């Protein structure tokens, strides 16, 4: 059962990560790759708070999210001031810099990773409770972001992506909005990190490097940018597919690279044949239209 639980939790966490990453790069149109590092920040903060400062885990997890949020604002504020592409480079610098920092600081466990992290729920209420907690967090994140994207905020995000200048001339501050999007998405990643770390109880900086970013990007792009189901399908499919592959009886030396080849080719094929992803989002923004109808009736 534990095996299924672990898979369920990971899938739930990946749904949170892909969905919140989609919020940033899809809805916000912000080119960042640093999502895994906010995941890492959440995980490390929560782990250290709980382990070394005695903060109860149920408080440490949201605190991890909060720290990821603060860090994301700290990156976005200076780099968004310039131009979108700089955020990409700044995010690379930020991601690698933070990982380098984690490796070198004396109290993070260094590159060997952090051990002896307190667990949560698993002893008292059983693992089922934790699985339920992770899945609930995933569903909650998806619903929250979907609710935001389909409401007035989503409308404004669409407008901002369409034409920032016209958006500003209508009294909207695109900069504030971008930072808010970045912060919200990153804090959800931080939250996911907290959930991860108190179940698996080990983290190391190597788990969060640039190729992780690429894997997350893959989930979002193959799933379908700017759709609710796209990143969910992308996350679950890319988590489940490798299992299917292992049923094919191949020697291990071939299997390892073959998976990489399979996935990267899949992304490339998608980029050229189906750039909109598995679940294509409409170019047009769709709000909760019943409200529009209500208004007309009123």
């Amino acid at each position, binding site marked *: 059962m534990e095996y299924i639980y672990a898979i369920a939790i990971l899938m739930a966490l990946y749904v949170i990560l892909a969905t919140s990453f989609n919020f940033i*790069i899809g809805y916000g149109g912000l*080119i960042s790759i640093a999502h895994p590092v906010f995941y890492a920040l959440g995980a490390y903060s929560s782990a250290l708070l709980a382990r070394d400062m005695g903060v109860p885990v149920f408080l440490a997890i949201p605190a991890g999210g909060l720290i990821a949020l603060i860090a994301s604002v700290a990156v976005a504020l*200076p*780099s968004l001031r*310039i*131009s*979108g*592409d*700089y955020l*990409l*480079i*700044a995010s*690379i*610098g*930020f991601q*690698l*810099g933070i990982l*380098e*920092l984690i*490796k*070198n600081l004396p109290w993070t466990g260094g590159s060997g990773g952090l051990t002896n992290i307190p667990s949560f729920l698993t002893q008292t209420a059983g693992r089922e409770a934790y699985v339920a907690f992770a899945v609930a967090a995933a569903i909650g994140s998806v619903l929250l972001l979907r609710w935001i994207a389909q409401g007035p905020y989503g409308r404004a995000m669409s407008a901002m992506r369409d034409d*920032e*200048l016209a958006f500003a001339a209508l009294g909207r501050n695109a900069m504030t909005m971008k930072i808010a999007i970045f912060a919200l998405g990153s804090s959800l990643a931080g939250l996911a990190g907290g959930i991860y770390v108190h179940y698996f109880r080990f983290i190391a900086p190597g788990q969060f490097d*640039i*190729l992780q970013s*690429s894997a997350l*990007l*893959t989930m979002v*792009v193959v799933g379908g940018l700017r759709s609710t189901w796209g990143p969910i399908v992308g996350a679950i499919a890319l988590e489940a597919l490798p299992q299917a592959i292992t049923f094919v009886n191949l020697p291990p*030396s*071939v299997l*390892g*690279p*073959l998976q*990489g*080849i399979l996935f*990267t*080719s899949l*992304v*490339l094929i998608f*980029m*050229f044949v189906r*750039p909109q992803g598995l679940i294509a989002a409409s170019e047009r923004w769709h709000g909760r239209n019943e409200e529009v109808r209500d208004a007309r009736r009123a």
Partner: protein
Amino acid sequence: MFSLPILAQIMWTSLATSTCSVLFALAFALVLKVNRVFNFAQAAMMTVGFYAAFTVVGLANGPAWLGFAAAIVASVAMAILLEIFGFRVLRRRRASSMFVFIFALVVSELVAYLVMLVFGTWPATIFPSLFWPVTLVGPVAVSQWDVPALAATIVAVAAVFGFLRYSRAGQFMIAVADNPDLAEFYGIAKDRIHLITMIVAGLLTGLAMFLYGSRAQVQPMASIELLLFAIAATIIGGIGNLGGTVLTAVVLGIVQNASVLFIPSEWQGFLLYIFLFLAIVFFPKGIRLPERRLTRTAPAPSLIADEPEGA
């Protein structure tokens, strides 16, 4: 403590080893300047370049010159493939820069996995031996790798700048970099120029990877990390400023190496990202000397949005 011979040695060896980074950075910066693409797929060009040379020299015991030729041919071929089947298509589709970025990164990974499949993950070098005999020049140890590498790099950099300045294609490249839409009105076919730029980048990458691989061990995923340094040098040197990029690559190499005399060496890697981050925040257009009259400077290309309507 930091005596002159020590400093001289650091300067010399850092200078010699910065040659590879200079070439990587120049290739990256050139493609960014002319084609306006953050070519993360350069890592793929680097990987195939190295493994081509490795196959010829390391595995088949072929002569060094043949390995060199193989590196060049493989890198250039990869560059051509990338341009024609990748960037050109995406450009026609007006793909967003994020899309282009993902494409380039994923291609790099795909190539790394293919290489893994064929060559395995064991670190490899082009020549069986890593050791280069040294000669002492005064107090400074000069290895037999240093001088040819420096010479080759200087020749290559000079050739690129000469090519840009004096050849027809090079001037077209400058023109396309300066104002791509205008360039067309003088009969310049942009597609061709973009292709030539990638070929030049391929040549530089092939050479650099041959130099690098004859001195250090390479693993299939190593190129992606190597490229990060090139990106940092390009950004800090000022986007569009090739001279600045070359200079920054050299200075960064030396500073990083010399930094261990002043800071604990485990922070060496961190230093690069600090530089990169600070450069983006405070000097988005690159750190450069006060502009001389008549010097060439190009504004940082905006790769996403249109410029706001000016006057």
